[in-house]
C-alpha cells in the first residue's frame, strides 16, 4: 500500500488489516492485466478514432452571439415602435374610421331616439377628431347647416304631432 498517512489518518485494526488483505488481493488480480496489451489496444483505438482536443466550441459562441443580436433587435424594435407610434390604445383610436361629419345623411325618416344618437355620434366624432374630451352637450352653433335644418324639421314634426 502506497499510503502515506499522517497520525490522525492512520488506520487502526481491524480496518488496517482488512484493507491490507483486500489490497493484496486486488494487486494479485490486477497483475493479470497486461500493460503492453492495454497499450497496444489503446493506441489502435486512438489511431482509428483520433483524439479531438477539447476547446471551447466556436458554434456555441456563434449561437450565443446570434441569440443576443436577435434579442437586441426584438427589444429595440419594440421600444422604438412604442416611442414613435405611441401606446397601443391611442394608436388604435387614431386608426379607427370615425365619421366626423353628418353631411349627406338623410334624417327625414329618423325618430327622436335616432336623432339623439346621431347628435351624440357627431359630438363624439368631433371630440375624437380634435383630441378633446367628448362634450356633454351640443350647441346650435356647432351644427352644420344641414344638421340644423334636420333638427328644426324634426322639432316641427314633433310639435305638430303633439
Amino acid at each position: 500500500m502506497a499510503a502515506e498517512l499522517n497520525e490522525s489518518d492512520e488506520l487502526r485494526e481491524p480496518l488496517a488489516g482488512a484493507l491490507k488483505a483486500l489490497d493484496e488481493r486486488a494487486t494479485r488480480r490486477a497483475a493479470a492485466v497486461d500493460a503492453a496489451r492495454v497499450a497496444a489496444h489503446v493506441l489502435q483505438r486512438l489511431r482509428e478514432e483520433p483524439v479531438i482536443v477539447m476547446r471551447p466550441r466556436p458554434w456555441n459562441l456563434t449561437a450565443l452571439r446570434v441569440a443576443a443580436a436577435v434579442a437586441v433587435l426584438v427589444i429595440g424594435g419594440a421600444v422604438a415602435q412604442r416611442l414613435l407610434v405611441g401606446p397601443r390604445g391611442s394608436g388604435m383610436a387614431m386608426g379607427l374610421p370615425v365619421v366626423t361629419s353628418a353631411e349627406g345623411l338623410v334624417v327625414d325618416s329618423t325618430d327622436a331616439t335616432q336623432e339623439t344618437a346621431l347628435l351624440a355620434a357627431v359630438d363624439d366624432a368631433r371630440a375624437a377628431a380634435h383630441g378633446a374630451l367628448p362634450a356633454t352637450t351640443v350647441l346650435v352653433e356647432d351644427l352644420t347647416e344641414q344638421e340644423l335644418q334636420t333638427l328644426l324639421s324634426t322639432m316641427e314634426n314633433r310639435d305638430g304631432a303633439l
Partner: protein
Amino acid sequence: MGAPATAEVRDSELIARFQKGDEQAAAELVHRHTAAVARFLVIQGAPDDELDDLVQEAFIKAFRGIGGFRGGASFRTWLLTIGSNLLKDRQRQWKRRQMVELTPDVADPGADPGGEAEAAAAAERLGEGLGRLARLQREVFLLRAQQGLAYGSIASALDISEGAARVHYHHAVKRLRAWLQS
C-alpha cells in the same frame, strides 16, 4: 549510468508530447499507470473478465478528454477517477441487465490456508463495506488509504474542497470500522 530516460520524463511532458501526436508518449503513460488503475478498479468490485476492457476504456477516455485535464491533480489521480466513473456506469448497466455476478476470489496458491482464512474473511467483509459507502466516501477513502494521495490532490480530482475530502475520509473510516466490528 543514471535512471532510464523514461523514468525522468514527467507525466506532464508525456501529455504534452501526446497532444502533439507522439504515440509513444501515450504508450508510456499506459505502461506507467495500468497497474494502479486496475488495482483501484478491482478493489471497487470490478469483475476480472471486465478488467482489461475497463482499464483500456479509462485510458481512451482520458486521452480523448486530455484537453479538459486541468493539472490540479496528478494524471494518475485524474485517471483513477475516470476509471471509477466508468466502473460506476458499467455497474449500473449490469444491474439493469441483471447480469451481475460476484467474481469469486482466486486464492493465492502460496498462502497458508489457516492464516490466510482470517485475512480473506476480513478482506471480503471490507469489500462489502466499501460497496455500502456513499460513492464520494468510497473514492476519497480509497484514494487516500489505498493510493496514499494527499487531500489536495483528491479534492482537485473529485472537484470538491479539501475540507470536504477530509470529512468524507473520516466518515468512511468510521462507517467501515463500525461495519467490520458489527
